[in-house]
């Protein structure tokens, strides 16, 4: 571990307010810290600075010094050091904080600059807000309200450009709405490393395009929709489904891999419409993979498990099974479960005096935000003590134990046992108590199936590849006939004759804070929105499967580098 370089703080003055910011912070970010909005389009905190939209023009000044003596020049009127203001407005995005920098954003000149840019951006814009999907989250709308004149002087023919171009399987482009800020081009080149977008032609006829014959189809293409400040790039899936102002936003996590990209789930009346990334500079910046945005489809999938029986009835059947073969049970936990569920899974195994297993899921990592470990929470299983070693893809040990007759009952917490390597013959030898959200071979073969909730229907925490504990919240209610995982596990523990365990988040966290050294002193409510990094030293020697990603260098790679 290296300690981060100490950043030098410098004091700048923005609209009369002094603030200390790290040297080099640009004026847009510095102004944000004092509550001053510097409107902008092309600037994006996670992309290179190009300064092309000219919306962030500000007045800039520096304290005057005598050129010969370097002594400060005082202003007799104020008794303060005189400020030399540059007559021309400067772009905030490319102006970095230096000691004594003075910025004015509320002068007549700056008002005029903003009105001018707004007018220019709208003269060739179709002004089709009523039929535009961006309405409600459109910077052009917001900033023309905030900074525009409110009327148009343009009476000429507008430029005509291509409409409804399919840039790829998920992104639709309307070139007439495009303000040529180049965010999407920079994203594709700099972050997605898929240089397919560009501008063709020139001047006001410049047109955003994808190279003919190529497609914007990389797994990050929808980030271009997120960062498009206007309605030029829209999501083909989400288009025309719902006005954004009707949607409720819930903080969640991308559970497709151990990266744990932070997300927002957008829902209305119990229905999820889209998932977008939530900024976390230590994990995913402002990005997420397209694949993670589709996970909500599991909520209303045809394969979704629900029960006609009550939970009590299901648990009674489970208890009967567990009592039939005492001492001959096994528990298969999951790297997809939350930390809290994994803890209760561990407690269930203890109550049954049964071994606990975990199934790994791996595929090639993309080096960005989808890692090789496709379980979001293997570290949770380690931290809670559910398992002590990295999982294997197949449950070979369990299969042998079944064949030996050492295991007669398996509780599967969401894993498909057949997909995890058990054969039909082996399944036939045992009784399965299956928890889960989707129909699978294992649920078909199970003696008891207890339907549970998807990640969108419950709250909890997961621990990502950085050993960062992160929260997810409940976006929508689960369907009738599906039961909260914690309650199911707590009651199964009781059914197995174990001690009473809490079945609510706060209660489980009291137990976690007391029982688990890495989580000592924490509570669910105390986990910050950006997560908290745990002490990973007990697991430092484990050969985790992940390679590098956007903000993660594996410890073993880092050490050998």
């Amino acid at each position, binding site marked *: 571990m290296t300690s981060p370089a100490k950043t030098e703080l410098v004091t700048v003055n923005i609209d009369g307010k002094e603030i200390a910011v790290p040297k080099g912070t640009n004026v847009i970010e510095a102004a944000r810290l004092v509550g001053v909005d510097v409107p902008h389009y092309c600037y994006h905190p996670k992309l290179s*600075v*190009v*300064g*092309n*939209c*000219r*919306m962030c*023009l500000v007045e800039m000044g520096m304290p005057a010094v005598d050129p010969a003596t370097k002594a400060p020049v005082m202003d007799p009127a104020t008794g303060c050091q005189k400020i030399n203001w540059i007559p*021309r*407005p400067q*772009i905030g995005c*490319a102006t970095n904080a230096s000691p004594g920098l003075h910025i004015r954003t509320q002068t007549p000149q700056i008002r*005029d*600059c903003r009105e*001018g*840019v707004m*007018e*220019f*951006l709208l*003269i*060739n814009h179709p002004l089709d807000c009523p039929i535009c999907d961006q309405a409600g989250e459109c910077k052009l709308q917001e900033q023309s309200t905030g900074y525009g004149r409110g009327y148009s*002087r*343009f009476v*000429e*023919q507008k*430029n005509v450009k291509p409409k409804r171009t399919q840039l790829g399987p998920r992104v639709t482009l309307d070139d007439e709405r495009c*303000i*040529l800020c180049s965010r999407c081009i920079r994203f594709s080149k700099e972050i997605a490393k898929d240089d397919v977008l560009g*501008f063709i*032609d*020139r*001047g*006001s*006829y*410049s047109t955003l395009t994808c190279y003919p014959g190529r497609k914007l189809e990389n797994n990050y293409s929808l980030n271009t929709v997120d960062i498009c400040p206007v309605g030029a790039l829209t999501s083909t899936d989400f288009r025309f489904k719902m006005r954004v102002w009707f949607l409720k936003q819930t903080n969640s996590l991308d559970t497709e891999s151990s990266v744990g990209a932070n997300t927002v789930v957008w829902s209305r009346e119990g229905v999820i419409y889209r998932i977008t990334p939530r900024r976390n500079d230590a994990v995913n910046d402002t990005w997420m993979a397209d694949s993670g945005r589709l996970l909500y489809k599991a909520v209303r999938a045809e394969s979704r498990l629900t029960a006609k029986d009550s939970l009590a009835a299901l648990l009674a059947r489970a208890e009967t099974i567990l009592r039939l073969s005492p001492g001959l049970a096994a528990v298969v936990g999951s790297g997809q479960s939350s930390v809290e569920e994994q803890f209760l899974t561990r407690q269930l195994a203890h109550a049954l005096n049964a071994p606990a297993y975990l199934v790994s899921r791996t595929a090639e990592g993309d080096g960005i935000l989808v890692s090789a470990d496709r379980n979001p929470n293997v570290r949770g299983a380690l931290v809670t003590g559910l398992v002590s070693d990295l999982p294997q893809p197949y449950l070979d040990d369990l299969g042998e134990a079944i064949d030996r007759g050492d295991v007669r009952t398996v509780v599967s917490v969401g894993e498909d046992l057949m997909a995890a390597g058990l054969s039909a013959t082996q399944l036939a030898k045992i009784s399965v108590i299956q928890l889960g959200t989707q129909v699978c071979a294992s649920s078909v073969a199970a003696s008891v199936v207890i339907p549970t909730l998807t990640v969108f229907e419950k709250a909890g925490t997961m621990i990502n590849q950085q050993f960062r504990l992160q929260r997810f919240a409940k976006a929508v209610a689960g369907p009738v006939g599906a039961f909260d995982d914690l309650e199911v596990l707590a009651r199964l523990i009781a059914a197995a004759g174990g001690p009473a365990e809490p079945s609510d988040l706060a209660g489980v966290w009291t137990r976690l804070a007391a029982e688990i050294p890495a989580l000592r002193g924490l509570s669910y409510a105390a986990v910050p929105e950006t997560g908290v990094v745990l002490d990973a030293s007990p697991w430092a020697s484990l050969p985790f499967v992940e390679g590098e990603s956007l903000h993660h260098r594996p410890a073993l790679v880092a050490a050998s580098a």
Partner: protein
Amino acid sequence: MPAPAQRRIIFQHIDEPGYTNDLACYLRHGGYANLRQAVTRKPEELIDEVKKSGLRGRGGAGFPCGVKWDLVDRKSGKPIYLVVNADESEPGTFKDRYIIHQDPHQLIEGIMITCFANNVKQAYIYIRGEFPEGARILEKAIAEARAGGFVGPNILGTGYGCEIYVHRGAGAYICGEETGLIESLEGKRPYPRIKPPYFPAVLGLYQCPTIVNNVETLCHVKKIVEIGGEAYAKIGTPNNTGTRILCVSGHVQRPGYYEFEVGKVTLGELLNEVCGGPLPGRRFKAVIPGGSSAKVLRFGERFKGKRKIGNDLVDYDWGVEDVPMDFDCLAMIGSMGGSGGVIVMDDSVDIVAALANINEFYAHESCGQCTPCREGSLWMKKISARMVHGEARTEDGALLKSVADQIAGRTICAFGEACSWPTQSFLAKFGDEFKAYPESRKAAAAPAVPLA
């Protein structure tokens, strides 16, 4: 008082019978003697000579050449590049064409002296695409100079090496802007870079320190080394040293190129005596004194104020004809010397149509990178074209000016000024004609010479 005689130091051999653009001819006329002399001197001395000369860049901005060289980051450890701006693009300017076509070795000698003075090992001549013949001539001349030991790995046996390559543009005015040119040379769309941080002297070509100099400027460098910075500074007028090639086009009897000591000839002398005055039966109406982006002057207007001559402040009260053709006087009266292109319009010209013509040029040439220039230049073109070809409104003049005012000073590069100054000045000087245009256009017969 008759106009002063031309003083041809850069155009000494242009149009001289028997003078050819090959190396042998150049050597017969004393060519490369200045380079031979330069490589025996310390580079800092040469930079000093240029500083002493007071030479100001001949590309348009008139920035002091010695200061430009001084700004170069020599501590970065990165190579320093020289990029020769032969993308002569400001409408009304055509001086570099003749240097390249008729006296290319003069340019190459100036380049090599500049490279030696600045420890440059690689120079590129960025020549506009519309000069295919010029590119061939330069390539041939460089090959000759290479064979002669004036260019290449071991120049004149000194062990100092420097290569020159010719790089052709492809029809883009914006490549005359030095950072746009650098982007173009890097193989990209010539989008000018934001400054800060991308000052060419520090982060230029390939993010290395880079000097970008105009063709004519480099020829002056050669002359400075020949006669010494102090002697050169005596040519012309204080702060406006040396000679200037003035390119006159439009409505005069004898358009063409004329080289004068800077500031020694007035606009009136230039147009009336040197260029023979207006066409028969015509009177001068307007003149653009420094390339089409320079602010237009209206014959009949007067300029009053005080100016410094030596240590004295002296009153001046000039008509257009009285203005000395130097950087400072033209700036004083609200225009600029720019690239030296003087465009003359007589009383036959429909001034709105002339602006429409200029606006079409700048709308076509705007790179489209930043909002005010991209949208504003085309808007101005659309308004002025509509005034000429469609329905003109009395309020169009004020609208045009307002659009221009929203561009200048707010763009990434100086194109913002270049495209808005014509509109601003045409409205300031000929606002009456714009206001009356809806009526006058209906009354007039079709223009004798369509401009837009």
